[in-house]
């Protein structure tokens, strides 16, 4: 079993089951602007802070530029450089100085210099930024393969844990401009940046990891104030023991429906059409938590804040007071106005800052409508990871068309949600017959037939229906669906 070293990039060490292979080369490929340099510098800083002296080799950049970039990202490379824990080397002359090609050549110059540098500094790791800059102008393919191999072989001989950055011509075609990484590098990481309208969606993929298991596929990542961060589905710091602790939903009758209340550390999805009571349910849920003394965050994406507070006031939930008390935070945002990436960052930072144990998002459909299918999927995976990573309990609302609540949920949402509640309504002569049903509840038995939901003073009220009432409701529902089709 090979030895690995952690990069300190959140999420990356999970995807790779422990980090980079020690003494081997890892290729990090991606188009311009995908975050390769950040990955390289961030890892270098982490290595340096943990006693692994690292050389950062800039081919086109000056040492000052590299240090400045690192400092701007908050890695304190200048400090590490001053301490001698990081060595920054510029390898090429400035572009202004004239250079002419007179025949064939190889990279032995660079190889000798790196050997000399490693001997002098005792470095154990190296970041090369970038192989592409080194091979420009590009030599013929056979020669290029040779040169690249010489470089990697040099790193291997010197026992260096190497990160080689390379520019990819496109996101999904032939990985690198070099085409030689397959037998030469032990790990290949691909970074991508897709534009979804005006929004940026970054992702990272462990394309290959020789002799080691790894997560397959693309994972969303983002650039935070602390550098690059990745959101794998199973966050590393998820509490291992699945606590079976339950807490009250705050809705009379609902605790009965769920056979004891909601489960801690679970994510609940509440689906229903507009007007079915989702927001009300979310409000009651949040309130109950706050009343218990928990820290609660309610993210509203549908209504402006004053409207939301007024709606809650109508059923006398007293949200305003809870906000003033300090352990209830109400945040209203417009998903159309921000990129998903920024929203995820805000979420993460906000949660880290406030440390709530209960989170409400009302509704994720607003976000869904403001993005592409793929973007939304990646966003939800990222959200789930943030929530799970801190053992939080969450309630997410989702708007669907009336009568469509029982429809099949998108597979990834089903995976994310530990429990799914559906709300629906059928209009009757006098009133709206609101119903609620528990579709799924991981880890618990639950009632399967629908309950009746009423909205009134004090919030929501749920009760079992009598058989007769149930019958009447079923008929009404049939008529309702029949009338609409």
């Amino acid at each position, binding site marked *: 079993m090979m030895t690995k070293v952690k990069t300190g990039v959140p999420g990356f060490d999970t995807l790779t089951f422990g980090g980079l292979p020690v003494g081997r080369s890892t290729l990090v490929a991606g188009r311009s602007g995908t975050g390769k340099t950040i990955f390289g510098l961030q890892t270098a800083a982490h290595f340096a802070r943990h006693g692994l002296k690292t050389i950062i080799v800039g081919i086109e950049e000056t040492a000052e530029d590299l240090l400045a970039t690192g400092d701007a990202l908050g890695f304190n490379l200048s400090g590490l450089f001053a301490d001698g824990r990081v060595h920054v080397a510029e390898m090429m002359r400035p572009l202004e100085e004239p250079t002419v090609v007179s025949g064939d050549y*190889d990279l*032995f110059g660079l*190889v*000798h210099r790196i*050997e*000399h540098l*490693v*001997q002098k500094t005792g470095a154990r790791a190296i970041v090369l930024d970038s192989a592409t800059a080194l091979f420009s102008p590009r030599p013929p393919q056979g020669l290029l393969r*040779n040169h690249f*191999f*010489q470089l*990697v*072989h*040099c790193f*291997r*001989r*010197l026992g260096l844990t190497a990160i080689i950055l390379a520019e990819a011509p496109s996101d999904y075609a032939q990985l690198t401009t070099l085409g030689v990484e397959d*037998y*030469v590098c032990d790990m290949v990481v691909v970074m991508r940046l897709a534009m979804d309208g005006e929004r940026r969606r970054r992702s990272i993929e462990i394309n290959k990891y020789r002799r080691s298991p790894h997560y397959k596929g693309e994972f969303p990542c983002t650039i935070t104030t602390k550098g690059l961060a990745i959101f794998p589905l199973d966050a590393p710091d998820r509490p291992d023991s699945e606590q079976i602790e339950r807490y009250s939903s705050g809705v009379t009758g609902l605790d009965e429906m769920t056979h004891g209340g909601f489960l801690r550390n679970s994510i609940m999805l509440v689906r229903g059409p507009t007007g079915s009571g989702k927001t009300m349910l979310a409000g009651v849920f949040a309130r109950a938590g706050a009343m218990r003394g928990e820290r609660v965050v309610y993210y509203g994406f549908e209504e402006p804040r004053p409207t939301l507070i007024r709606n809650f006031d109508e059923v006398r939930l007293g949200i305003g007071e809870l906000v003033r008390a300090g352990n209830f935070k109400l945040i209203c945002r417009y998903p159309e106005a921000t990129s998903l990436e920024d929203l995820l960052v805000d979420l993460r930072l906000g949660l880290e800052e406030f440390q709530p144990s209960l989170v409400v998002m009302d509704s994720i459909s607003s976000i869904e409508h403001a993005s592409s299918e793929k973007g939304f999927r990646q966003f939800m995976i990222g959200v789930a990871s943030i929530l799970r990573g801190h053992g939080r309990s969450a309630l997410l609302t989702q708007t669907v068309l009336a009568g469509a609540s029982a429809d099949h949920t998108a597979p990834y949402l089903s995976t994310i949600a530990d429990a799914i509640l559906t709300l629906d309504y059928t209009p009757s002569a006098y009133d709206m017959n609101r119903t609620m049903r528990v579709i799924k509840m991981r880890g618990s038995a639950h009632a399967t037939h629908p309950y009746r939901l009423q909205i009134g003073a004090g919030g929501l009220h749920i009760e079992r229906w009598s058989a007769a009432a149930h019958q009447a409701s079923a008929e009404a529902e049939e008529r309702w669906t029949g009338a609409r089709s």
Partner: protein
Amino acid sequence: MDRRQILVVDDYAGARYLRSRILMDAGYEVVEAENGEDALRLAATVLPSLILLDVNLPDISGTEVCARLKRDPLTAGIPVIQITGAWLSEEARRRGMASGANAYLTEPVDDVMLLKEVVNLLEVAAEEK
């Protein structure tokens, strides 16, 4: 003794692959070993016409492997090219030179230079017969 077989010893698969390919393109057959024990065993059983020996091996050092090959009358006559690092200490280098290899190449090793050395040594060995 097979005149066309070369034993390539290196614990790094990438190096073995590339060196093997160069030699095979030049018409030789190649046998590979990734550690000292395998190298000694294969040298004695296959009796290649030349051995390419990297100094850094996981079990026994390349220098020690070379010394053993030269001590064993069965394998002593097989020319050995030892590949060594340039940054080794003077002492290590001297020790390496004393192991009895027929030629020494220092990293970085140029493929064409390697081939020249191989051809050279094989010619010399042929003449000595």
